[in-house]
Each structure stands twice: as structure tokens, then as C-alpha cells.
């Protein structure tokens, strides 16, 4: 990419896509008036003390995964938590966008909790499809379902921002994508009703709510209905996981962002025969795993997302 500056008359879709690629190496993003601008690479961005509320997103820990793409997914989760503990400014809390475990085993949930709790932060979870595959489909809900509705959706407010955790990994239909379902969508509509349109809204869910690559199931069948309900809000941020790579898109006042996994990378859409775990050289693995830090300034803007790999 030859030009990282986004000045002048707005940003073309193509330019945004170019920056998405660049974001893979770690970029501080700031959104002013719906126009994304990259401010610099991670190190210089981190040097500037963030004002306002900061929270973290981690995703796709896949605790229990032990295949060649990363024989020690618990170890890299611990590295991510150590990275978080070393941050100069303690974040307000953390969200985890699902696939905490690989096979929904009790030990996997226990191990994940033991490591993640070392960050000493409140963690707001949503489930991934890998968290619902125990025989009775009860382990996730026993641990993280308290106070949630349906399969585990809920909302909360923090720092003047309204957060909504959505579940799009249950009741999936053959040939389809992620699924929110009527009950959840009706709840969402009611949850947002009557809120001031100046309230920043963050929607987070495991599978991308936008259509990234339907051939690999990377999208949500009825995601557009959820996005319909946030139309009119001045600042909307959609945070997802599932695809194990950084991807970002801006449409109007909505910023879409997917986080890296802490366990293993997956290939770029269509660049491999399947979305399965991508085996890379050991020396390269940690540059493809990581965490995201999201910063809200008090006047709601600019919003900044910093993706930090475990290793540059």
C-alpha cells in the first residue's frame, strides 16, 4: 500500500479494503465523522496514552486444540493474557467473542477460566459454535449464562456505551450461515427502543454479522435485521470473531471489525481449499494471533481499535 493517508474527499471502499490488509500488522484506527483514518502502527499508537474508556476484545481461544497449527492453544492464550497485563493503562473490562473451548469439555472451560481470570478483569462472553458441543449443551450456560436470555444474549451499559452480546451459533440451518432467530431479534429491537440515538452502540457476536464470505459460512443469515435496528444511532461498532483474522469494514456510521484468534490463524477468504486451521512457520504464528483494544473518547468520537499481535 503506497498511501496511508485518508485526507480529502472521503475514503473509497477499495481504500478501506487496502487498509484492512495493512491492519494485519497492527494499526490504530480512528473514526471521525464516519471516515476511517489510520494514525500509525501499534507501537507509536500505544505510546499515545488513550483518553476515555478502553476495553479489550479477545476471541477464539479454542482451549483444547492441539493440532499442528498450534499444539498449545492454552499457552498462546496465556501469552495474550500476559500481554494484556502488561498494558500501560488497565482496560475497563474485556469481551470474549466465543470459541472459548475447542470441544466444550469441562476441563477446557476450566483451563480457559483459570488463564483468563489472571487478567483480573470483568469478562463478557458470547458463545461460539465450539462452546455448545457438549452432549447436554449445558456447560457454557452453567458458567456464563447467568442473567442472559435465550441461548445467552444480553445487554449492559458501560462508560456511556450500550453493549449488546448476541448469539448466532444455535439452530443453524443446512446450507445456511450464522443465525440469530426471531426471538432474539425481537428482544434486540425492544432493547434498543427508546434509547437516545447519540448513545454509542456496540454489538458483539461470534460469527460476523456481516457477510464476509458465504462460501465458507462467514456471515449471519439474518444479520441485516439486527443492523436495521441500529440504523439511526450515531456510532455503531460490530465486533466479531470466528474467522481468526483481522478484517474491518466501515459502512456509514457502522464499523465492522473481526479480531484475531489467540489459538490459530485461518486463511483469507477463498485463499485455501477450506477455512480450516492454517499451519504457518512456528516463527510466524504469534504474529497472526492477538488481541484487540477498543477506545471510546468521552465525546463518543473518535473511536479507535488497536489490533495487537502476540509478537510483531
Amino acid at each position: 500500500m503506497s498511501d496511508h493517508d485518508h485526507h480529502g474527499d472521503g475514503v473509497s471502499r477499495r481504500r478501506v479494503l487496502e487498509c484492512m490488509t495493512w491492519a494485519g500488522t497492527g494499526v490504530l484506527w480512528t473514526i471521525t465523522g464516519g471516515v476511517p483514518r489510520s494514525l500509525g502502527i501499534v507501537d507509536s499508537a500505544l505510546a499515545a496514552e488513550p483518553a476515555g474508556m478502553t476495553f479489550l476484545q479477545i476471541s477464539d481461544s479454542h482451549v483444547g486444540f492441539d493440532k499442528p497449527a498450534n499444539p498449545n492453544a492454552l499457552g498462546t492464550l496465556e501469552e495474550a493474557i500476559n500481554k494484556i497485563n502488561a498494558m500501560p493503562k488497565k482496560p475497563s473490562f474485556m469481551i470474549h467473542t466465543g470459541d472459548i473451548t475447542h470441544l466444550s469439555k469441562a476441563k477446557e472451560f476450566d483451563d480457559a477460566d483459570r488463564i483468563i481470570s489472571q487478567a483480573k478483569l470483568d469478562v463478557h462472553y458470547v458463545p461460539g459454535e465450539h462452546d455448545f458441543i457438549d452432549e447436554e449443551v449445558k456447560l457454557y450456560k452453567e458458567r456464563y449464562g447467568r442473567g442472559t436470555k435465550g441461548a445467552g444474549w444480553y445487554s449492559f451499559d458501560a462508560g456511556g456505551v450500550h453493549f449488546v452480546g448476541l448469539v448466532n451459533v444455535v439452530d443453524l440451518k443446512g446450507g445456511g450461515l450464522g443465525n440469530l432467530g426471531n426471538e432474539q431479534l425481537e428482544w434486540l429491537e425492544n432493547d434498543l427502543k427508546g434509547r437516545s440515538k447519540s448513545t454509542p452502540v456496540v454489538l458483539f457476536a461470534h460469527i460476523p454479522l456481516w457477510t464476509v464470505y458465504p462460501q465458507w459460512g462467514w456471515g449471519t443469515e439474518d444479520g441485516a435485521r439486527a443492523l436495521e435496528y441500529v440504523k439511526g444511532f450515531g456510532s455503531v461498532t460490530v465486533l466479531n470473531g470466528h474467522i481468526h483474522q483481522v478484517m474491518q469494514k466501515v459502512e456509514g456510521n457502522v464499523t465492522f471489525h473481526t479480531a484475531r484468534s489467540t489459538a490459530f490463524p485461518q486463511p483469507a477468504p477463498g485463499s485455501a481449499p477450506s477455512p480450516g486451521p492454517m499451519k504457518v512457520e512456528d516463527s510466524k504464528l504469534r504474529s497472526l494471533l492477538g488481541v484487540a483494544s477498543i477506545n471510546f473518547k468521552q465525546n463518543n468520537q473518535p473511536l479507535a481499535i488497536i489490533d495487537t499481535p502476540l509478537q510483531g
Partner: protein
Amino acid sequence: MSSINRRDFGIAVVATMLLPIATARAEDVAVHIDNFVFEPAQLTVKVGQTVTWTNRDDIPHTVVCAGKFRSKTMDTDGTFSFTFAAPGEYKYFCSLHPHMTGTVKVE
């Protein structure tokens, strides 16, 4: 890819060796999951035949046919077998990755 081919070859050799003493098993039909794809995705069998799915991916999969059969989650090298007792067209999918679909036609 070459390792899969080697494994296919290995399975073929074992199957050939077993053939004389296990002719009943010759009726069984295998479906492999490689790279998030059921192979073969379209299959025609006779009533009474058993189909066995084997997951060769590094990611777990399932086989679900609404109202007919539902496998447990199959981790790598996990298998699931179902014997088709009635004719019909059985469309199935992976409940974790629903873009993965297949059909068994039973005659």
C-alpha cells in the same frame, strides 16, 4: 494433499486385505470429510446399507439429518454410522458449519 493420498492408499490396501474374510462389510459405504466437504456429497445406496462418515479435518464436524439422524460431535478421525432402513432422499449437513451439505439417496 500427498498425505491424504497416502492415507487413502493405506486404507485401500487394508480394505483389500480384509475383503475375503469380511465380505458383509463390502456393503458399507464411506463418506469422508476433508477440507469442510463431504466426499462424496451425493450418494445412492440400497435399503439396509450402512454409511459411515469419517472426519479427517483438524476441526470437529457433525452429521445431522433433521428428524432422521444426528451424530455426536466428531473430532479428528471420529466416525458416525447410520443404516438406512427406508427408501428416500436424506439431505444432511454439519450443524457447526451448515454450509457443508450432502445427500444420501436410498433406493
